[in-house]
């Protein structure tokens, strides 16, 4: 495999499942749906004290509208870096990237995505409701709109009734759900999630995975999800991007077509295991399991 290039250099957009909302004229566009993220030849090289580090080398990736894409790989494979470039939190040193057809900076200024970190990052001095309303305050929504949106999204993540609580009064899983509500509050079409459930135990994580899937199904957003858990990636995604380190590159892109209303039980099915094996094979070939 050529270093730094993914096996499918031009990825055919996944065919959209015909759904009710795609009735009008959009059916004609179904053959070439909008690309939410279009990265070509993307590279990022860091200067550190010990020399140059190539965090990303020649990344080609296309993510379509409505996809749930997982980036999976060991530490140092560049998955978080790639997410941060999409979010305009880092600038690439080579290559091009378009988010919703414009530069990442433009997408950020137009508030087109919501970012969720590994830690809930809620403000300890604000109640849950005021935490969820924080981005709305910054973006200039009026008070009534803020309240309406806050209530709607807290309901969506099953935290109604906890509005007046402070973050320390909630468990880790609940805090993370609150931060998801916060990211959704201004209706971005794109959600960027950086190992959001990494700090939680497996039982809570399973529960939140189900909830996230339902949310994705209901809202039709595009999700880019960074994880280092193979079952989580295979369970959640329509497309799994396997990455490996030194330099950060894409080893494999796997499409998966589980039904949108799947439950945790599919994790024991043969199809699931086959995809998981393919992911693992990709990680091995990228020397992710070596010292």
């Amino acid at each position, binding site marked *: 495999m050529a270093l730094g290039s993914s096996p499918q250099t031009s990825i055919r957009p996944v065919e959209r499942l015909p759904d009710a909302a795609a009735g009008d004229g959009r059916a004609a566009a179904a053959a070439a749906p909008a690309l939410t993220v279009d990265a070509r030849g993307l590279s990022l090289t860091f200067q550190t004290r010990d020399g140059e580090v190539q965090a990303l080398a020649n990344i080609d990736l296309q993510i379509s509208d409505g996809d749930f894409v997982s980036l999976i790989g060991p530490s140092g494979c560049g998955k978080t870096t790639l997410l941060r470039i999409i979010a305009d939190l880092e600038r690439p040193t080579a290559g091009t990237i378009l988010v919703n057809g414009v530069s990442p900076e433009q997408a950020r200024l137009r508030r087109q995505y919501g*970012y969720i970190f590994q830690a*809930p990052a809620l403000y300890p*001095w604000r109640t849950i409701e005021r935490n969820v309303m924080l981005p709305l*305050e910054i973006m200039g929504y009026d008070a009534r709109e803020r309240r309406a949106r806050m209530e709607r999204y807290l309901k969506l993540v099953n935290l109604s009734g906890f509005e007046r609580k402070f973050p320390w009064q909630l468990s880790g899983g609940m805090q993370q759900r609150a931060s998801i509500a916060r990211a959704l509050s201004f209706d971005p079409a794109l959600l960027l999630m950086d190992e959001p459930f990494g700090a939680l135990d497996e039982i809570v994580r399973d529960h939140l995975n189900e909830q996230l899937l339902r949310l994705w199904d209901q809202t039709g957003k595009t999700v880019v999800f960074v994880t280092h858990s193979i079952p989580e990636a295979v369970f959640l995604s329509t497309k799994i991007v396997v990455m490996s380190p030194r330099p950060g590159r894409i080893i494999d892109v796997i499409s998966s077509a589980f039904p949108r209303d799947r439950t945790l039980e599919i994790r024991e099915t043969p199809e699931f295991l086959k995809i998981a094996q393919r992911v693992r094979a990709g990680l091995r070939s990228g020397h992710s399991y070596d010292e």
Partner: protein
Amino acid sequence: MTSSALALPQAMPRSGWLAERMPLFVVVAILLVLWYLAAVLMNASLVRDGFRRADTKYSFTDLIAGTMEAARPVVPAPHQVAINFFDSVFDYPPDSPRSLAYHSWVTLSATVVGFAIGALFGIGLAVLIVHLRTLEKSLLPWVIFSQMVPILAIAPIIIVVLGAVGIHGLLPKSVISAYLCFFPVTIGMVKGLTSPDPIQLDLMRTWSASRLQVFCKLRWPSSIPFLFASLKVSVTISLVGAIVAELPTGAQAGIGSRLLTGSYYGQTVQIWSALVAAAIIATVLIGLIDAVGRLTARRMGAAA
């Protein structure tokens, strides 16, 4: 910034208020006993000489009693200090120069005015330093440097120069207090304003928040704990500054002047009373700031 630990209120039985404070009371009681012992031991030779000079016979109890009441003791007994303190505060009208309350008020007013000015300046400078890179690189190192050098030594110059220009009384002392307490506030606030996690700042960036929004919604609230910690430190420094400011020119009023006159005229007990007054002022000021700090923390959702 938020702990992701399971944070449900703990249902542990709490020990009583008294039980928690017991070691402190015992230690204080032991120290009081030691104090009395010291008074007896240190004043004994003084009292013995006094009896010898007056050619009176004295018993052991007379000696002990004498050490508790000596006019110019080496170590005044605790009750002596207490009596003198209450006398100096309550026996004179509050505006009389013989009243300890008057002197305490003079020092207290200089302390509070200086503290207010210094704290406001310190906060303002910290905000500027955090937002202007040039100031951060050119001025902040000097502010940090000032922590290593005895800047209190400049107090006499300020008093004298301002006096020569005709400014006396409260203002020069406040200037010194302000000057001394502005450094810890600046440093503390710079630490506080830059304390938010990088992920918090990243999050603000993803929402394209303006610098003013980041300041009002993130930096300022994060800096509140640092603010109160540094205010407590700086109010004590402000008090020291006000007292020291009264020394070089032999001021007529204030706790520093009481210390000076006490030492010139050998009035030991007066010195101790003045120190008690200073201790009370310090405790009250810190207690006030602490109370406001705790109230603010509770309103800002701190874990109870």
